[in-house]
């Protein structure tokens, strides 16, 4: 097992390098990072555009920009004053040494920009994922065990409705019902925006209260989808011979379901969760935008739109690394769920 893990980790290194190169080239073609400087209110004068192109390293060929992004430029001289003559060593150390570069938009370390949002996103997405898992497991298993019952049919109908709802529409509906109208009607109401009430500050209660609507809007759609998936996996497994044998042996139903059926039905679910977990870091741009949640989704959307290469690459590289690591973790988890699976 140890050898297997080490081998996978070593294989990941060239894989990540190739991924980073492809991503860098794609992102470099998103548009001109300087085009939106100034917004529509104060566009960048031509002389300043030329200067910033040089200062941000955008005057170099894409492949050179990639190399600098990867290994830095503190080993080579660059033209600081714009006279065409390289006169001072650069200050970048490169991603391999932990320097993701400076955000084009904010002119400060990209890793700092990302770091400010990571925990907010993990909080939102972890809460959402937990809610999704708990409720979809409960609903999916119950639905499978009561196939074609009134409850199952109701759950099926609600699942299709839930799955069809666009998140942005659902978010606004939740706001207008539970925030605006509940307040008007004198009922307990939820806040519209933000992570906490600014006058009270970031207390646990405040954050939980502000999490309710965003988590609800994100999780309803996912619960609808996941519960259907779990239901179909369970249905496939509970009709297997070994489950019938377990019943015949007189085992309690709970042990048959959770100890035998669910364990086998969970294998594909582990794969899906393993793929989902690193993507948690990507946040949920629509939900974050509507609820004013300062997360990675909004940051990624804004950085991509603005062709802010350091920030966009930082987010994508982090997610890529996490995908690789979580895939390895997923493979290891299989061995616990299914003793027949072993790695050399």
């Amino acid at each position, binding site marked *: 097992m140890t050898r297997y893990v080490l081998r996978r980790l070593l294989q990941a290194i060239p894989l990540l390098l190739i991924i980073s190169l492809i991503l860098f080239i794609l992102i470099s073609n998103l548009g001109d990072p300087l085009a939106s400087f100034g917004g529509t209110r104060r566009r960048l004068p031509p002389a*300043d555009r030329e200067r910033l192109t040089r200062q941000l390293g955008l005057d170099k060929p894409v492949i050179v920009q990639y190399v600098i992004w990867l290994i830095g430029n503190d080993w080579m001289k660059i033209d600081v004053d714009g006279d065409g003559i390289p006169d001072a060593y650069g200050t970048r150390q490169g991603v391999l040494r932990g320097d993701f570069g400076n955000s084009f938009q904010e002119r400060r370390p990209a890793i700092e920009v990302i770091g*400010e949002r990571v925990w907010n996103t993990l909080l939102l997405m972890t809460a959402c994922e937990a809610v999704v898992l708990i409720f979809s497991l409960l609903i999916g298993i119950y639905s499978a065990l009561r196939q074609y019952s009134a409850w199952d049919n109701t759950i099926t109908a609600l699942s299709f409705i839930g799955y069809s709802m666009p998140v942005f529409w659902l978010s606004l509906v939740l706001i207008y019902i539970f925030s605006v109208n509940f307040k008007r009607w004198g*009922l*307990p109401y939820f806040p519209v925006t*933000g992570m906490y009430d600014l006058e009270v500050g970031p207390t646990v*209660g405040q954050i939980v209260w502000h999490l309710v609507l965003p988590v609800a809007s994100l999780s309803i759609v996912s619960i609808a989808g996941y519960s259907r998936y779990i239901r179909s996996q369970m249905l496939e497994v509970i009709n297997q011979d070994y489950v019938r044998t377990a019943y015949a042996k007189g085992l309690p139903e709970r042990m048959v379901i959770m100890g035998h059926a669910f364990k086998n039905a969970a294998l594909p679910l582990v794969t899906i969760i393993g793929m989902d977990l690193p993507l948690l870091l990507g946040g949920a741009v629509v939900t974050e935008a509507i609820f*004013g949640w300062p997360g990675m989704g909004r940051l990624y959307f804004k950085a991509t739109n603005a062709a802010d290469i350091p920030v966009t690459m930082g987010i994508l590289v982090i997610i890529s690394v996490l995908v690789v690591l979580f895939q390895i973790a997923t493979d290891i988890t299989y061995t616990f769920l299914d003793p027949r699976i072993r790695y050399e």
Partner: protein
Amino acid sequence: MCTKKIGCVTISLLIVSSLMLAGCGGTTTPTTTAPVAEEPTTGEMATQAPATQEPATPAPTEAARPKSITMTFVGGDPESLNPIYAYSWTAECVFDLSLASLWNIDNDGNYVMDLAEELPTVENGGVSEDGLVITIRLTPDVTWSDGTPLTAHDAVFTYDMIMDEGNSSYSRYPWDTYVESITAVDDHTLQIKMTAPYADWSTSLFVGISRIIPQHILEPVFEAEGTLDNAEWNRLPSVGSGPFMLTEFEPASHIIFKANERYWRGRPHLDEIYMRLLEDRAAQIAALAAGESDIGSYIIGSEIPSLKTMEHIEITSSINGYQVVTFLNVDPKTAHPAMTDPLVRRALALALDRQLMIDQLYAGLYQIPVTYWHGTVYDNPDLEPYPYDPEQAKALLDQAGWVDTNGDGVRDKDGVELTLRYKYIGGDETTDTRIASMQQMLADVGIKIDIYAETTEVLWASYDEGGPLATGDYDVTHYSDGLWYFPSPDTSYFLCSEIPTAENPWGYNWYGICIPELDELFAAQAVEINPEKRIEMFYKIGKIMYDETLIIPMYTDPDVWAVNKRLKDVRFSGVDPLMFAWEWDVAE
């Protein structure tokens, strides 16, 4: 049995979760509480602090509670809290609260002194006869919020930092073009030497988004690192000079301001201002409806009907020099051949019912401008907006030789169909609707437009990057644009020298306008310090552009604010939006 149990457990969990969450209410703040008479008891109970919260000090009495308001800003964070790196409107609003400027300009165009004692003029000796030396006396006894005197040396330091190669400052204009040197004659006297008479000095140097930064804080940073790019002060200024101190900034979330006890005008009435940074317009409207926001910003016309249903909200607007303009590509090398004909361009203007669009899509909020200088004294009063006259449009097109010879509904000439490329920045559904209606209006007169929606980064990319506007790969576009240093009229957009080429890839004359008389007038006005002469020049500029139909002004794009009626003495300026924040108060 087990399945029933799972069902019971599920239902129980749902009930328990609901009860727990119902108990986790946050406290409301004075800013979000509707007037007491309207608030039923259950609403108040629901907004008490949750049981799980850490023990808090007893809630202060009404008299001791800080006077605070919440503003919402849509459209993103300030990119930096250091003015030398900032450019956005949100950043400018932040600086109005946290950093003083030499003077501000109110909605009526009056100069309101801030750091400067008086506006330099030739009469008072502040401006030399040749317009090349400007001497500014600073108000004595002005300090930074830490008590350090704010002096002319801070201004000199600011200029040095803007110009230093170690700083990737946003823009050096107009410093690099017009300023020869800046010196501190003494602690309270600043002297600016110009390279040439610069007519717009009073709206661009240390005013607007250009503010003075603290030398005593930032000089040590620059000396240690050789750059201010990574200074902590850029993200959380430790000192300020405006009516409010910026005490907290969480990107994509909020900024908190507290009253600056050392503000030179005296402590502002408000204790705190909370600025929520939102991305979604619907969320801002919901926040205004729920009372979570006291001031909503950048309201657009399509939001007015829903705001008008809120009795606690009033709408106010300020002219800011911006308008939505339909720009036409008239470059014979790249544009559709029809676009080089003034008759066709005039037909385009006459075919568009702008008032209908304003009434139907923007609740009648906007006006139809005549020239690019609407809202300033430079707007030619003898000109009237192009009327809506589709019949006249058809007649002009016939006269220009564009007729529908093949019966497909689209005019043609010499085998060329009158099909124009319309490229614009997409992403806003009201704009998309407007473009679709324009497409129909033009189709009614026999002009077809093919619509392309792009992102800003693609549409506005430079000539080198193959940007559609810069390379002339379009015929018609539109965006909201205006005067960089409003109310000053200067612009370089329509100069021949600004047409992008391989040699000059960053020129902004994306329209291919090249009229020698216009170039001469623009060059003359930039250095004309006699106001009356300058106004006459712009009257002529406006007339030329109007007669040639080089642009089609669609509607004004003012700053529109939604204000909770619980506030008082709230007024704005289209030039320095929050310049009067030190007067704002909460009604008793």
